[in-house]
């Protein structure tokens, strides 16, 4: 095994892993605000890719199509919170999870009815001429993926630690009653968390779509991987989720390259199961008892 191929696996892994990380980040934002694990998170990623493709096919210039896709997915997030979550706000955690699974099936179904079962591609943002170094090749799109992921991460970090809105969202998760007493509109924050998660997920979906292609059902697997990224990084920890996603992407890529690509998806789930047994608080988890 030469250095060039190893580097190649690393680049591929980090690129795909960044999207897992963004998906995981989406899980984290909703979980941190509402305590809900949103199993429709993968559908937001799918919506980003599919809506980007649709807008671009309709003649919208690429950069605008990307923004439009993210905006439309954000709206879908708001709609989902309003129609599925808010009316049953007092339901048990298990019921809420089942409701999010129902919502994911619905979203997937609607997209399938409109766009069919085909696989679509979005043009690369700045060409497909690979950048070659040390025997490996990197698509310019990979740089887009990494750059935008980094920007989103830094943006979210300062949002949650520096703005009053961000602090208010966190406060809702730690103690919704006390948050209400501070004057925070807890149910509006829940909606905002769905919108931000949808935006982050869709951004991940639309920047990856040129590399991995997209279809109505890519959200299932991406959602599960994003969830695995969260668990890997410790549920509730945004940076853990992003790092977990990248670790997962890299492991997958090396597994596929060194063993067989048939094992690619299995690797994620073996890791997920192992982790749930051995260290349920995640690699970067602070141990339990932190969030009550």
């Amino acid at each position: 095994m030469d250095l060039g191929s190893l580097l190649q696996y690393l680049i591929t892994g980090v690129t795909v892993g960044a999207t897992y990380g963004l998906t995981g980040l989406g899980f984290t934002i909703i979980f941190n605000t509402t305590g809900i694990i949103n199993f429709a998170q993968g559908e937001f990623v799918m919506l980003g890719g599919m809506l980007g493709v649709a807008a671009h096919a309709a003649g919208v210039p690429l950069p605008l199509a990307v923004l439009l896709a993210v905006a439309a997915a954000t709206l879908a997030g708001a709609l989902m919170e309003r129609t599925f979550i808010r009316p049953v706000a007092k339901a048990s955690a298990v019921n809420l999870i089942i409701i999010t699974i129902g919502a994911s099936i619905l979203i997937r179904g609607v997209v399938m009815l409109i766009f069919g079962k085909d696989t679509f591609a979005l043009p690369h943002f700045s060409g497909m001429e690979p950048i070659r170094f040390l025997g490996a090749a990197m698509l310019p799109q990979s740089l887009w993926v990494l750059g935008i992921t980094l920007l989103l991460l830094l943006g979210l970090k300062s949002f949650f630690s520096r703005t009053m809105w961000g602090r208010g969202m966190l406060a809702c998760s730690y103690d919704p009653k006390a948050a209400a007493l501070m004057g925070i509109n807890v149910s509006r924050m829940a909606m905002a968390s769905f919108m931000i998660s949808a935006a982050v997920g869709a951004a991940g979906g639309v920047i990856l779509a040129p590399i991995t292609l997209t279809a109505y059902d890519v959200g299932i697997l991406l959602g599960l991987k994003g969830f695995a990224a969260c668990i890997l990084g410790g549920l509730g920890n945004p940076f853990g989720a992003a790092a977990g996603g990248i670790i997962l992407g890299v492991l997958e890529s090396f597994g596929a390259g060194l063993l067989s690509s048939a094992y690619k998806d299995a690797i994620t789930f073996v890791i997920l199961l192992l982790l749930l047994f051995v260290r349920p608080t995640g690699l970067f988890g602070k141990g339990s008892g932190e969030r009550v």
Partner: protein
Amino acid sequence: MLRLKNVDVHYGKVHAVRRASLHVRPGEVVALIGGNGAGKTTLLTTISGLVRPSGGEVLFMDAPITRSAPERIVRAGLSHVPEGRHVFKPMSVEDNLLLGSYSRYSMQTRPRVQEDLEDVFALFPVLGERRSQAAGTLSGGEQQMLAIGRALMSRPAMLLLDEPSMGLAPQVVRDIFKLIVRLKAERGLTVLLVEQNARAALKIADRGYVLETGRIVLQGPADELLENRDVQRAYLGRDLDREE
């Protein structure tokens, strides 16, 4: 300033508060005393909008707030320090206090919020020393100070305090009660104080109400309640044994 008229509260079939009427005048400290499960917390959470009454009316500064959302009520100037403190444990002391100003926070009020933050640190120097520490790592007394400081950050006209002395050492309890007197004297703050520690509460209060199984059974000036035989037997006896 605050007036409750025949307020009823139900939790399902449990009738927790029965036709309760009370009022608090501007600048007064009013104590609400009663045993375990009498309905004191329920009454306060009804005033601050966390619980909806099934009947009756709540007026704050002559405006009805009976079915207003909690965030509207904070904005109107009524701030609630909940039983058990409920600080945001993983967040820093400073972030907890800043969240207290959420209801009035904007670009324009930012400098004033910063001033108020320093005011709270002047009032509670220990919070200033621990401003970047997670609230969950504070002692019980410090968390109570944080909860009160956080409530003050909304610049309230009136404070609802639910058992601020709960679980605290006698010296810390004395400090908290001194602080209430100080807030009243220096800032003209109006306070509705719920306490199981009836003696200490009545000593600093102007008037008091006694709640028993959801009903207000007695009311009057605090010094009269302190002398009242029924109150002494039911609520002060235990305190007497402990203090002397």
